[in-house]
């Protein structure tokens, strides 16, 4: 369970890195969609999170976390859409998604665009709990 303090620190990191109004960085805002973050923005966000919370996350960790170690051939189907197995896992790390609506439609490469500020805060919480520094 993500604490208010962790969520606040993550939101602050996003606000500072993107230079956007704090009101735009709602927990449900998608980082790469609504907030239009680029790869260098993500690096900046993650370094700020590391300084504020002492939790080190690399940019590449994000897609690993989202895919949950499921091999590509199981996560995606032919044509590049996310499989039922993949969607079931996504629901655990991105509980806001509507799997039924996304079934057979979500391209694997688009998954990361659904990642929200809250999802990042949850990831930070999971990493902190796992003692990853």
């Amino acid at each position, binding site marked *: 369970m993500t604490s208010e303090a962790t969520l606040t620190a993550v939101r602050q990191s996003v606000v500072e890195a993107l230079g956007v109004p704090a009101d735009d960085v709602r927990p449900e805002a998608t980082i790469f969609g609504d907030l239009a973050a680029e790869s*260098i923005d993500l690096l*900046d966000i993650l*370094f700020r999170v590391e*300084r504020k919370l002492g939790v080190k996350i690399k940019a590449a960790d994000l897609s690993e976390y989202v895919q949950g170690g499921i091999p590509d051939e199981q996560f995606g189907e032919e044509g590049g859409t996310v499989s039922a197995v993949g969607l079931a896992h996504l629901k655990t790390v991105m509980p806001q998604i509507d799997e039924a609506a996304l079934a057979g439609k979500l391209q694997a490469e688009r998954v990361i665009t659904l990642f929200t500020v809250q999802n990042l805060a949850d990831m930070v919480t999971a990493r902190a709990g796992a003692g990853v520094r």
Partner: protein
Amino acid sequence: MGRLDGRVALVTGASRGIGRACALALAAEGAAVAVNYRSQAASADAVVAEIRASGGAAAAFPGDVSDPVAARTLVERAIGELGGLHILVNNAGITRDGLLFNLEPDAWLEVMRVNFGGVFHCTKAVVEHFAAQGGGVIVNISSTHAERGWTGVSTYAASKGAVSAFTRAAAVELARFGIRVNAVVAGITDTEMVGSLTARDGGRGVTRQIPLKRTGRAEEVAAMVVLLAGLENGYVTGASIPVDGGALSTLGVGQPL
């Protein structure tokens, strides 16, 4: 109290010349200094001894910065043994001068590997550490040869041109991470590297073309490095600052012959 108390600096190619002067000057301002060298261990040890004799902190670290693995190891060792890193001075450089008619086909590559490759590898090796701590300073030693042509120095000139261009691009990319990147554009400076230039005729053939009518001293280049390194919260980034006795400001030789 020095301007760089509590800071740790890494100077590549610091056993002699401009690198040595930078190591001594940074230490004099209170920085602990990692003195990198490739082959001149005794000279590097002498620099370390001189710093320690003056009450400073320093240690010598071998490593060929043209090798990315060696550059990373160098940075990690410096951080581990000196307790951090805040300033990187990319100084290591070589020359393989000669007329284009005579140079071996890979002469450019050898020079580029050290003079630009060293800057690239060491920069890459520090950026994560710098970004994680919220900032750092990189000072690259470039050359007036990056800006103006001279006979016989094409490979060196091209490598320093790369350093100057990289300085600007890296400064823009790294600014948001609190990392400033600047270059000191050294003119003809009294070091072993340019010994052959100044050996003949007491160097008059060179100094007559320089407004200040003398070659530079390594300490003068180092003083600018300290200035740039010390502006930790400064507003200077992406700059290439000449320390050249006015050479780059001159049209021709600055007067009718």
